[in-house]
């Protein structure tokens, strides 16, 4: 079953703009991770934020976590055409901490 729900399902922006994707989940979590997937290929880990953290940065990526609202956001600043991909959030549930539960993903298109 899917845990996270990413919003929007699809996003199209121009190079240089910022892209914001949101993820909502249903149960208490240990951590939340964001991954990127180029068309039909393997997933690449972007960033992990723990349940006791509120914000984390990595290069052009900024992730926030609001456990009271059970939601997270991924911000990509100054987007590039190479950022075109699908972005997934995945959570480790507090009660079952050996598997990741994934959302449906946001498809991001960055137009040159």
């Amino acid at each position: 079953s899917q845990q996270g729900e990413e919003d929007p399902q699809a996003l199209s922006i121009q190079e240089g703009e910022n892209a914001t994707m949101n993820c909502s989940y249903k149960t208490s979590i240990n951590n939340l991770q964001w991954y990127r997937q180029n068309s039909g290929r393997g997933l690449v880990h972007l960033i992990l934020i723990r349940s006791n953290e509120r914000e984390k940065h990595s290069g052009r990526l900024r992730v926030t976590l609001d456990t009271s609202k059970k939601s997270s956001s991924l911000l990509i600043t100054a987007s590039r055409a190479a950022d075109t991909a699908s972005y997934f959030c995945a959570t480790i549930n507090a009660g079952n901490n050996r598997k990741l539960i994934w959302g449906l993903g946001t498809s991001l298109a960055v137009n040159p």
Partner: protein
Amino acid sequence: DAGVTQSPTHLIKTRGQHVTLRCSPISGHKSVSWYQQVLGQGPQFIFQYYEKEERGRGNFPDRFSARQFPNYSSELNVNALLLGDSALYLCASSMTGGPNTGELFFGEGSRLTVL
């Protein structure tokens, strides 16, 4: 260093057949997980193995089985294939298989088409 490698990359089977997918984790990683990703959806957890023991199982029928070998490589087997088994099968490795699983390193996947 080589990343996670999976084989075959693509394969076509017919209903009722059996398939074996293989995965070699990153050197030094002892945990391997398998995920199924149907087109347009997120990955679904199938199995996790750590130190050759099954540590987690998703909601998949008994037609799905897996094992991990002493060198930490892994096989995913699917019997009596159905059309709905058509998907990208992803293998991921990690350093540990314990609580608070962290970053996973994924292979490029095996794309299975069942006709």
